[in-house]
């Protein structure tokens, strides 16, 4: 089509105001690609987990003699993280209207995120007390690997949240940055129920 066949030359009007097009803001596009990679990273770990689970002798999972995971308490925590995600989406929509309106939901999201991480930290301490460690068998190893990697992402996410919050207060945050942050945080939030379903239930 372009410059092919019967019409090799495509001479646009000389006075045409040519512009660079940024269909998707740089920050958002970069984050999209990064999140895609992260999804594959977690897909790899979940695949490994599923295979190990399926290859346990006798098919009993979790293997006998291992402490039970706190399913109910974590369900509560899951709700907290999901609410954090909802608050972030609200913050994003408020930001589009007026950046100053985004402060409150943004803070709510951050606080719920911190709550999630801290709550999980206490849970880990309890599990370690019960003798579930990385080297106590595949169950513990996968638990700490998968949940720990997610926790690491959540902590990094909170760090970015803090940094972006400063930018927001300074009024130096652009839409692309807000979109990128929202996308990353939604990734962290929505990943959790999948991990909860796979690892805890």
């Amino acid at each position, binding site marked *: 089509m372009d410059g092919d066949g019967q019409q090799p*030359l495509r001479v646009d009007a000389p006075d045409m105001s040519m512009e660079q*097009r940024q269909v998707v803001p740089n920050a958002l*596009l*970069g984050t999209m690609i990064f999140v895609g990679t992260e999804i*594959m*990273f977690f897909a*790899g770990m979940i695949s490994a987990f599923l295979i*190990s689970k399926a290859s346990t002798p006798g098919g009993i999972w979790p293997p006998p003699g291992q402490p039970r995971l706190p399913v109910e308490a974590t369900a509560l925590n899951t709700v907290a993280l999901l609410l954090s995600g909802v608050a972030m989406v609200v913050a994003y929509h408020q930001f589009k209207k007026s950046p100053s309106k985004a402060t409150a939901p943004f803070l709510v999201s951050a606080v719920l995120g911190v709550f999630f991480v801290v709550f999980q930290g206490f849970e880990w301490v309890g599990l370690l007390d019960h003798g579930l460690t*990385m080297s106590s068998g595949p169950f513990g*190893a996968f638990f700490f690997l998968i949940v720990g990697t997610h926790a690491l992402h959540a902590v990094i996410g909170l760090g970015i949240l803090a940094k972006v919050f400063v930018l927001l207060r300074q009024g130096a945050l652009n839409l692309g940055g807000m979109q990128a942050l929202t996308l990353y945080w939604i990734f962290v939030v929505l990943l959790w129920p999948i991990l909860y379903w796979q690892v805890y239930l």
Partner: protein
Amino acid sequence: MSATAHDDHHHGPTFAEIWLLQSTDHKMIGKQYMFIGMFMGLIGAYFAYAFRMQLAFPGVNVPGFGTVSPLEYNALVTNHGTIMIFWVAMPVLIAAFGNFLIPLMIGCDDMVFPRLNRLSVQIFLASAIVLIASFFVHNGGFGGAWTAYPPLSAKAEYNLTPLGSTLWLLAVVLEFAAFLIGGINFITTAMNARAPGMKALDVPMVVWMICIASLLFMASVGPLVAGAVMLLFDQVLGTGFFDPDKGGGPVLWQHLFWFFGHPEVYVVLLPACGITAEIITVFSRKKLFAYKTILYTVIGTGVLSFFVWAHHQFISGIDPRMANVFTITTVLISIPIAEMMFLFIATLYGGSIRFTTPMLWALSFIAEFLIGGVTGIFLGSSGADIYFHDTYFVLAHFHYTFFPIAIIGTFAALTFWFPKMFGRMMNDTLGKIHFWGTIIPFNFIFIPLFYLGAAGQHRRIYNFNHYPQLATPDLQALRVLATVSLLVMLSFQAVFIYNMLYSMFRGKKAPNNPWNANTLEWSCPSPPPHGNFGDELPNCYRGPYEYSVPGRDEDFWPQNLPN
């Protein structure tokens, strides 16, 4: 630092920018990637020299190395493979030329995330240092083959290199992090920073190829990073992800590894194909034959590349029914690749072909890669793979793909863009001497290895005397032939190094557009200053391959000229 870099037109790059990787300029970063990659290439070549000598003359005191012990032999072959793929092919083809070419070819002043780009090359250097450090720790570098199958790679009691294997793994993970950052940059830049008027189908093929390769890399690397983290835990913390005694599965690693391992082949192949496309159009003064179809074949290759990886596991104890599916997909992937090669050959039709040094390299890429391509069919066919798996046939096959990709592709690109990179021309005569001195011995290295592989010689054996059927004088003569050819080939690289260094400082000054090429990078000065195009960035008015358009006086029509 980065803020001032662009404004400063008066003096060249500072010491810190060049040597401490403090520059955010994409051209500088590209060159840094290239030189680090070339340095690693020398190490990889040195390793090949050492173990080829051992294979041809078992037990000999290799000049410059000493006698090769079995442990050292394993470390040599392992790190030769790792270095050549991850520290030479990837950084030079994708990172170096991606960094250098993408902003210039799409007509913008720099990458969209220059500081991330700087971080990428810094991490890459760190990974190279970690890898080199792994050779000097207790018992030397990791020797469990570049595929690092556990439990061998997971337990120090098996591989005997407790620190070497951990450092190796760490280096690989760091290197992936570097390319991840780089790849995000490439795709975002190519999408968002194109010159005004440059549409998707006006983008030079090499930019497309590098972007699709980056996309493939990023979509496939995740599971391997997951696997590498698990393997690292196995090594360091004593977890049992891949340890059958602790309830893990050794095949699981292969599953995660080859999911990345095969797309990786296409990750490095595509940029080399793109470079070839650029060069053959310029020197045959022809439009690329069926640009869109080539693009489709690239996309088809990319899609299929996610469905072929288990062919590495045909005999590794996976469900044999899976082999049938993967045989079909593996043989099918020959279709887009064959079509791409046909289209490159068709581009030559009706041309006016100038056999300059870059053109010779690009043409030899096509001629040699075909051998690698057709021999792949043997290995993709499950029935034939039962015999060929892990023999020298495999080795010769992938060297016939990787050598054209990494070495021929790099030399093609370097000789072609050298005037733009360094502002001076390379010596064409020396270039041709180097070309023939490389390409002829190359065939004499690997054709004998095909034969040896067909005779049942399998890989990673430091001395064949323990296998009566492989220790015959006939087969040994072929091993010697391969090694002597390697020595010849390596000695001819001195010509190149001399030519490059001499031309870099003393060569003839290059004009802006020495090859009469169309793409945007040739419209800026050689070498391009900070900000590439000066105050005004170019507009793009047409596709990149409008050569020999009827009715024009000149046989080229740069993209940035309004008419």
